[in-house]
């Protein structure tokens, strides 16, 4: 058991709070899913719940220092931990996909924006194929005796299989959803997507701070790691909170009526 410094304790406590926030966002997604009847909307609520878990894991993976993280960072298990990031980002594409389908449903003219009904099939195939290749290759090089194996094939192809499962979901969510939301006249969907966009901004800001902390920690340029980590934790928490608001905004919610009246029982 490593001895934790004050700085480590700050990070551990901060990330426990952050992960609880993301878990709470996921809870609301799953909770609302059970109350909806129509499949498309149930799927969207499920999507935002899964995204909350995925992004929470993503934040932990990149924001929490590996020297005190219980997740393995080297060897065969370290390789598999790295591949898990691809799976953590997969719900983002699932949610983007179903959000674009929902936007089409709420569009009075039912326009198939970006030809999404066709494009989505190609992108899903691409993501799943590259994900399988990545997983199989990682398992292969993690097997005993294969640790020093060099993968054959053009660099561009190797880079493609690594980048695709990350880049496609992130690009689709960052470019297509804002465009579709701007064209939509559905207030509920717009509010849901606005909160999500805010979450993405906080997340990106947290990563910028993470990179700065990683690059300059222990140098004179970054004399106060407590402050830097505090800001990073704050950004991650704000991302989790925005995601929670996004999950709640999937459907209008009303405060429970206090003057509830029951006059008869019908069945």
């Amino acid at each position, binding site marked *: 058991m490593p001895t934790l410094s004050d700085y480590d304790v700050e990070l551990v406590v901060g990330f426990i709070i952050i992960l609880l926030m993301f878990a709470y966002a996921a809870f609301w997604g799953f909770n609302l899913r059970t109350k909806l009847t129509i*499949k498309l909307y149930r799927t969207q609520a499920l999507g935002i719940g899964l995204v909350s878990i995925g992004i929470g894991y993503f934040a932990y993976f990149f924001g929490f220092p590996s020297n005190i993280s219980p997740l393995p960072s080297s060897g065969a298990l370290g390789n598999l931990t790295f591949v898990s990031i691809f799976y953590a980002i997969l719900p983002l594409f699932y949610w983007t996909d179903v959000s674009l389908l929902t936007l089409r449903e709420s569009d009075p003219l039912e326009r198939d924006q970006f030809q999404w009904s066709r494009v989505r099939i190609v992108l899903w195939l691409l993501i799943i194929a590259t994900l399988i290749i990545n997983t199989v290759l990682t398992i292969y090089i993690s097997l005993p005796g294969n640790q020093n194996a060099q993968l054959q094939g053009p660099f561009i192809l190797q880079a493609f299989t690594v980048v695709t499962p990350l880049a496609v979901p992130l690009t689709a969510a960052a470019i297509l959803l804002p465009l579709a939301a701007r064209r939509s006249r559905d207030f509920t969907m717009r509010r849901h997507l606005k909160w999500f966009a805010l979450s993405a901004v906080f997340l990106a800001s947290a990563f910028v701070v993470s990179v700065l902390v990683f690059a300059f920690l222990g140098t004179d340029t970054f004399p106060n790691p407590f402050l830097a980590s505090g800001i990073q934790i704050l950004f991650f928490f704000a991302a989790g909170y925005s995601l929670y608001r996004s999950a709640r905004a999937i*459907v209008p919610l009303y405060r429970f009526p206090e003057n509830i009246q029951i006059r008869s029982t019908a069945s």
Partner: protein
Amino acid sequence: MASTGIASLDHLIGGDGYPDKSVVLIVGAPGLGKEALNYWFTHSGLLQGDFCLYVTRHSVQEVLKGAKSFGLSFETRVPFWIARDGGQLKCNVNDLTSLSFSIKEVLKKNNDRKIRIVIDALSSLLMLNPPETIYNFLNNLFDEIKKFDVVLLSTVEDGMHQPQTLVAMQELFDGVVEFRLYEEGLRVTPLLRIRKMLGVQPELGYYSFSFSKNGMEVSAYVK
């Protein structure tokens, strides 16, 4: 009276369903299943031999699929469709004049029977036109159709429009049935409420509802 197709809902409304010559609005958030009321209302009308007109911005195939998910089939008895695709007449939500004309013409040709109309395009109409235009359109349409033995049911999405628009729409209708999600702490409860109903004293209060293949179950909500 025109049965809703759901016995427990008929009871809540006052006994036998929606009042004669009334226009009823179903308000609810997307995904809560308020379309089921359209399907049951139409299904019940067809069984009773009423003339049923279904106006939708969707294709007929999509509506049939939706009805099937609630355990209903329109294969043996079919309504008259004004739909985006697959109907007897085309539903163009951009052309209010043509839509109004089509509805009136269909009613004139079937005025010897009890008529049921479902309009599943109100939210689309409100998104494409200023609320005042839709208000006037509905006002004129309701004046015309009430000359016949008609009951009209329409759905509108809660949360898609400005609250004042929804309030104005509710004023136009004789009856309003509301589907909402209420939160109390971590608990979320879907509840149904009859806000008003022409000429009858509906059972006030909030009611739990759930859907099954046999229809919709409505029961008094016990907190």
